[in-house]
């Protein structure tokens, strides 16, 4: 034991100006510090995840509250929350026989059979892999679609932005946008969470008559129904959000699903 300890004792007995001691102390402090940080991060992750999941749900509920008449419609339909369905993104059909609540995005992204790698050119949202299925939330009354909420996510400036886009029954008019989770710069990019800015979204159109997705955040004033004022000082966040919406409304995202809904309905 004493033999084992003696190199350690020798190390600490060295002068503080000794090169070995300097490098050794630097490595030692770095190792101990990173171990402490890693242990804390890993052990606390389940609690943090639970907090974030609750926050995401709360934001979607909050968005529903901002939609005029939506709560009344839900009361009439006798539901207290939106119906969750799983969509096969490739052909836009509903996945039958699977429990939407059991869908785990992280697990699907790890599984080569449940997700696809995106070509860098097609990956404008910066997500690298896309799951083959995605949940959507919808509200229907007597078989008529009233509202559909699409979960979208992708790269903002320095964080992943997760948002929920609520679309009206015509499948082109935006009913509301909710930012579910983001970590961009406070005071700049993080302003996409502000209610005043989110209030710019209702009534905008995601696509023109030909079905081309045109929704976009612009500098200066928005002049067409497809444009929303971007946030000054947060160009990267604004373009990030544009690309996220364009990706998820496009062919690799919910495009086929929306096209099918337009033709066949639910």
């Amino acid at each position, binding site marked *: 034991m004493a033999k084992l300890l003696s190199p350690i004792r020798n190390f600490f007995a060295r002068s503080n100006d000794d090169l070995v001691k300097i490098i050794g*102390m630097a490595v030692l402090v770095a190792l101990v*510090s990173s171990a402490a940080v890693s242990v*804390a991060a890993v052990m*606390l992750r389940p*609690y*943090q995840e639970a*907090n974030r999941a609750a926050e995401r749900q709360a934001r979607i509920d909050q968005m529903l509250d901002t939609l005029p008449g939506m709560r009344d419609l839900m009361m009439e339909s006798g539901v207290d929350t939106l119906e969750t369905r799983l969509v096969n993104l490739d052909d836009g059909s509903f996945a039958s026989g699977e429990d939407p609540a059991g869908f785990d995005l992280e697990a699907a992204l790890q599984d080569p059979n449940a997700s696809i790698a995106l070509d860098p050119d097609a990956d404008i949202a910066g997500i690298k892999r896309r799951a083959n299925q995605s949940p959507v939330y919808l509200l229907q009354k007597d078989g008529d679609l009233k509202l559909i909420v699409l979960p979208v996510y992708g790269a903002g400036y320095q964080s992943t932005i997760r948002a929920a886009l609520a679309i009206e029954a015509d499948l082109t008019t935006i009913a509301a946008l909710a930012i579910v989770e983001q970590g961009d710069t406070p005071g700049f990019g993080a302003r996409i969470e502000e209610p005043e800015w989110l209030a710019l979204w209702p009534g905008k159109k995601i696509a023109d008559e030909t079905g081309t997705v045109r929704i976009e955040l612009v500098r200066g004033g928005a002049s067409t129904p497809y444009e929303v004022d971007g946030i000054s000082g947060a160009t990267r966040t604004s373009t990030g959000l544009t690309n996220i919406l364009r990706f998820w409304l496009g062919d690799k995202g919910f495009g086929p699903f929306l096209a099918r809904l337009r033709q066949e309905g639910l």
Partner: protein
Amino acid sequence: MSLKHHLISPLLGNNPITLQILGICSALAVTTTLSTAITMSVALTVVLCLSGGVISLMRHHIPPSIRLIIQITIVASIVIVIDQFMQAFMFEMSKRLSIFVGLIVTNCLVLGRAEAFAMRNPVLPSVVDGLGNGLGYSLILLIVGALREFLGTGGLMGVPLVTTVAEGGWFEPLGLMQLAPSAFFILGLLVWLVRVLRPEQVEQPEFRLKAAEDRRP
């Protein structure tokens, strides 16, 4: 230099904010309400005590040539762990403090105490010194936070104390108090007040204008 001295002197006589003018960045940013000021005070006090203790414990083995790097690494690790704890168990509060918990790392007060005190003193006095400075910082933060929240919103801890004009009462909330400059004003007034009470804290001017001296009769 007793333990009691280390604990008491930073409260008024050697207050880190009003005398040393350290750590005022966060004092401006998180004092819009009393509850954020309290949380920030607790977080900073814990960081000060822990970093003081750890750095003092290993002070004989910190090579002088890399001492600042080692100190800041230790402080940063402690801050990250505390930030993680807050995200796990105080989620709402950590969202409101956003980046300011992480910015404790760059709070001059923490590195200042580590470098000036913990590097040369045993563990117990270092922890007590951290506690004392943390409390001194907290005292100012709480005063500023309480004043700003009360004058700015008419309540404390989110509980309305007086009815505002908007709700039919007589109290007109002072919107300026919720903006950063008001923290400077309050801080300046506090420094003034402390120096009136303790004239020995007034600094001598570093130089005098010669022309002005000559003109005097």
